[in-house]
């Protein structure tokens, strides 16, 4: 603890509160004992951080991750999740504490290289990524402004956080390199032949839209993530298994189950909105992109007609694209 060793953590915290900005400290009001416990476990004194500074860090964390009107329980849940030891180490490094840097180096240097290689899937590029990140952390931390470490708030382990910002840097680098690819190179790769994505706003029965909205809204956020990641973002089962810490077969079963349940829910929703079972099934099976092609083909066929039927009048699922061709 800082200052007088005879004073209790609560006394010191009270002193810290008294010297601090009351507005900023509000989110942590009534959590003195918890903060004192966290201060003890954080080993902040090892790097010369006082409880005032430590409390300030927690205020910053609470302000960043919680709404201003968050209740004490939400604050407690957040603080219980925070990796206070890592947070203190990061802040001590930002402050230029030599001992903290020694700990940081011994603890994370090797794992940074491992993470770089795992992200880049290439030894030299992985080392380059790690060196680049390390240079940012060290160089900026020593003299040239705010270190990226100052944005670490203890949410997630420091090692995981370093891995995340390294991966983000890898994606940024990849994206910037892609932007530098000339049009000539792109055309050589055949990219100019790629058709543009279909325009949004296809003709779909509003009852289908409403039922889909309703069914998706009833899903758990993690289930929505699973579906979108697998079907839309082309994540593999293996990737999803690693993200959610599940087995691949478990992920596979869950996607099966969610998809089947979602279909049923949408069909039920449409039936509640006045469709027959058959109509609902047909509406669900019809492919929106095919409907667009269908509309486009009809527009071309009837180019000379003065009045074109609006696409919304098409009965979804009434005609498959093959029927037109």
């Amino acid at each position, binding site marked *: 603890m800082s200052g007088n060793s005879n004073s209790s953590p609560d006394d010191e915290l009270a002193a810290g509160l008294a010297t601090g900005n009351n507005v900023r400290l509000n989110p942590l009001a009534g959590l003195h004992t918890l903060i004192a416990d966290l201060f003890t476990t954080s080993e902040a004194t090892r790097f010369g951080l006082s409880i005032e500074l430590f409390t300030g860090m927690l205020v910053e964390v609470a302000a960043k991750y919680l709404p201003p009107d968050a209740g004490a329980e939400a604050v407690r849940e957040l603080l219980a999740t925070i990796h206070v030891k890592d947070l203190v180490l990061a802040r001590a490094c930002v402050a230029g504490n030599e001992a903290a840097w020694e700990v940081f180096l011994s603890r994370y240097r090797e794992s940074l290289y491992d993470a770089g290689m795992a992200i880049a899937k290439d030894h030299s590029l992985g080392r380059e990524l790690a060196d680049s990140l390390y240079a940012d952390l060290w160089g900026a931390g020593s003299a040239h402004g705010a270190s990226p470490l100052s944005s670490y708030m203890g949410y997630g382990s420091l090692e995981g956080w370093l891995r995340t910002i390294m991966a983000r840097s890898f994606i940024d680098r990849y994206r910037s390199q892609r932007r530098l690819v000339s049009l000539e190179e792109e055309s050589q790769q055949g990219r100019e032949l790629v058709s543009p994505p279909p325009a*949004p706003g296809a003709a779909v029965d509003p009852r289908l*839209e409403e039922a889909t909205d309703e069914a998706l809204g009833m899903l758990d956020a993690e289930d929505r993530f699973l579906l*979108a990641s697998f079907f839309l973002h082309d994540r593999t089962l293996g990737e999803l298994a690693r993200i959610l810490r599940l087995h691949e077969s478990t992920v596979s079963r869950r996607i099966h189950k969610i998809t089947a349940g979602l279909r049923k829910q949408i069909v039920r929703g449409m039936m509640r909105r006045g469709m027959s079972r058959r109509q609902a099934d047909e509406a669900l099976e019809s492919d929106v992109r095919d409907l667009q092609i269908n509309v486009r083909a009809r527009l071309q066929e009837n180019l000379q007609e003065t009045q074109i039927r609006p696409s919304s009048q098409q009965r979804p699922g009434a005609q498959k694209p093959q029927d037109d061709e």
Partner: protein
Amino acid sequence: MPELPEVVRRHFSRAMGGEDHPDAGLLTALIEGTLTQTHRAAVFDHLVACSECNRLVALIAPEREVTSAVQPVEARRRWFTWTPVRWAAVGAALAVVIIAVVIGRIDRQTVVPGAPSARVEQVPTASMSAQLPVLVQPRTSRPSSKPAQPASHARQGVPSQPALSRGAALAAAQSRPAASGDVLGENAFQTSMMSDPSAWAELSPSTGEPPTVKPEPAPAASVTAPALPTGPTEPMWSLSEAGMLQKSNDRGHTWAAVAVPSRVPLHALSVLGQEIWIGGDQGTLYHSTDAGQSWTAVVPTANGVPVSADIMRIAFADQRHGWIATRNGEIWKTRDSGATWSLK
């Protein structure tokens, strides 16, 4: 895999882009399973809409071997949905439970005859052992320098892994992955320890004799039968089927993954109070002196050659003396908390 209705795809696509990205901390917490309920839905919904962050979380997710037991779902369901097979499975599970209970009773009656305070081992069922391949409960007090052993072994003057009753040994055997290809299994490791009385002599340097029966202290073994904690706050530790370290603070009702630096599957775990050792593929060995808060990589090296085989068992008698057994049959020994090692 069934097709997602196109209308659902379109709804997802409509939501894409336009939001602020969650910071690195939130994504890290998601991957580490520590995201609070306050942020969980928001982060997942962002990942639905943002392909960039979706790709990012796939990049930062730790590498694990999760493909080993993947089978087509339909193929597995087809035979298991056959009712007689289901009933046969239930019957087999019941039989295993009954046999385990009977063996446990016989064991308590015969192994330590007349001992009034012999340890009561909880004999796990097959399902328990399947859930908890390796489960270790930390000891609150330092173990006795002389490990206890069954009376029968003491009479023969042969040291053995102490206090592992037949029921406990059965549990330990059940807790091993069945198809791991473990050349040096628990029995081989115990045999190796039994054939080297000097190993136990190190624990009782004054006599150098095999230890005598003592019912009360816990053994110096890395793998013990699952046992209920004696105190309400003692955490239980185990390795998941996927080889990840996990911890329970409520007597095994719920388990939480514990972050470790290693991303390779773990096979071995030893817990001694605050001291935790974990070992896994390709000689991966980590040591924590603060109950898993921080980890130090340890590379056992003898004559300039580091261990490279998969570490399958770890046993620490006290903070300083320990052994590791590798898949290819090597036994490595340390007398100084892992600072130096010798290869037997």
